[in-house]
Every structure is written in C-alpha cells, then in structure tokens.
C-alpha cells in the first residue's frame, strides 16, 4: 500500500494518518525533565497496538526520556541554562523512535562501560537503563549537534 509508506523529504518524515509526532524544545534545565517524561508516559498509554503492558511501557518511556535529557543537560551542555534541548518522539505502526539532540562535544556510545554490580557507584546507570529498555540505541555526532536515537518495536 504505497499510500501508507513514508515519504522522506530531507530529514523530515511525512506522517501517515495514524502516526504521532511530537517535536519539543525546552530550556536546558532539569526542572523540565518531568514535563518531557510525562509526555512519554501519556503517549505510551495511548498505544493500543502495543502488545505488552502499557503501564510498564509508560514508566520505561518516562525513564529513557528523563535519562537521555538529563545526559544532554548535565554532560553535553554542562547545566548551561542559555542552551536548549530538543526532543522528538515519532510513533508509526511498527515502532516508537525517540531522538534527543545536544550541542555538546559528543561521546562514543560503545566506550561507555556497563555498571559493575560487584562495585556499585552512584553514577553511570543512565545509558545502561536506556540500552536495557530500548531495542536499538544509536548516537550520531555531527558538526551542528549530536543526537541520541532510541527505538522500540511495538509489534
């Protein structure tokens, strides 16, 4: 069904009628974590095509959004309140995709160590949680900014 297929125009996705896309920019402050997390949670509760437990998915989306945004605010932007964080959430029939943009130095996702349960420390679990809860995680560095892309299958 060609009508339902996505058409790509540059980097923008043309939505099909049942898609949801949210594109939001907030100040680089941790007080906005709950706003973004709650949007993820509210969206998850609407996903009647999701096979698993929607309440659990809601918590998990709240969590990955909170973790990814906190990373951008703290580590990429060093709490600079003049910066902003952009978050995009796109849901189509098959999957949910979250993108969190930053203008920091960037990092190598592969070199982030897994937490050591034998010697727990009080930081460094954010990306571990994101990787555990999402199906695909990718970090792209670019000269105009970086983006953490997190995908979850809905089928």
């Amino acid at each position, binding site marked *: 069904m060609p009508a339902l297929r996505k058409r790509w125009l540059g980097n923008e996705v043309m939505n099909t009628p049942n898609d949801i896309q949210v594109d939001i920019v907030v100040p680089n402050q*941790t*007080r906005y*974590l*709950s706003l973004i*997390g709650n949007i993820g949670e509210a969206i998850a509760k609407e996903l009647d095509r999701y096979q698993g437990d929607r*309440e*659990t998915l809601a*918590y998990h989306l*709240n*969590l990955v959004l*909170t*973790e990814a945004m*906190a990373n951008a*605010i*703290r580590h990429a932007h060093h709490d600079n309140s003049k910066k902003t964080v952009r978050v995009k959430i796109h849901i189509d029939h098959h999957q949910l995709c979250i993108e969190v943009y930053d203008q920091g130095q960037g990092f190598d996702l592969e070199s982030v160590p897994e*937490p050591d*349960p034998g010697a*727990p*420390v*009080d*930081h*460094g*679990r*954010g990306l*571990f*949680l994101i990787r*555990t809860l999402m199906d695909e995680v990718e970090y792209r560095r670019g000269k105009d900014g970086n983006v953490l892309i997190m995908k979850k299958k809905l089928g």
Partner: protein
Amino acid sequence: MKLEIDKQNDWTILHLLEPRLDAHNSGELKDRILKLLESGDKQLVIDLSEVRFIDSSGLGALLSGYKNANLHHGSLVLAGPQSRVKSMFELTRLNQVFDIYASVAEALAGE
C-alpha cells in the same frame, strides 16, 4: 524537595513526599541525607511509598546515602517502594545492595 522527618527510638525516618526522584531533586536528597548523618542521625529509613518514579540519579543519591551511612558507622534502609520503583532496583541489581522493606513498620521491626 518535600520531605518529612520522624524519629522513632534510634531511627530517623525520611518520608519523601515527591512523586519523582530524578536529576532535578536527587542532588538535594543526597545532601539532606549527608547532613543528617553528620548531625548524628545514623540509623536512617527512607520511606519511598510516595515516590512513583525514580531515575538513575535518584538511585545514585540513595546509593551515595547508603555508602555515607556505612562510613558514619550507621545504616540506611529503604521502605515501601511502589512496584515499578522496586523494579528499577532489580534492573540495576541494587536490590542486592539495599535492605528493602515493604513498609516503614517492617523496616523498624527489621522484618
């Protein structure tokens, strides 16, 4: 951060009255716990029953409190986590570090 502090015998109970424990308020929690330990309140129960969401920095603040309690020859235990909050401790295996009780009453009884 909204919290209430109760004392019962040797125990100091911190009732966290925030629905979210995240990077916005976890630093303050870490400081509050450290100040209590430094002022001599060394047996701490953290009542999580009102917390419906915790992120990695919230877990980190509690772990920092746990370690600081040990350094002060005290202890820090957790009480009453909601199921999804409790599952975060399991996912990160921090349930192997903390003593987690179903309620404050059970924590005080050491059950």
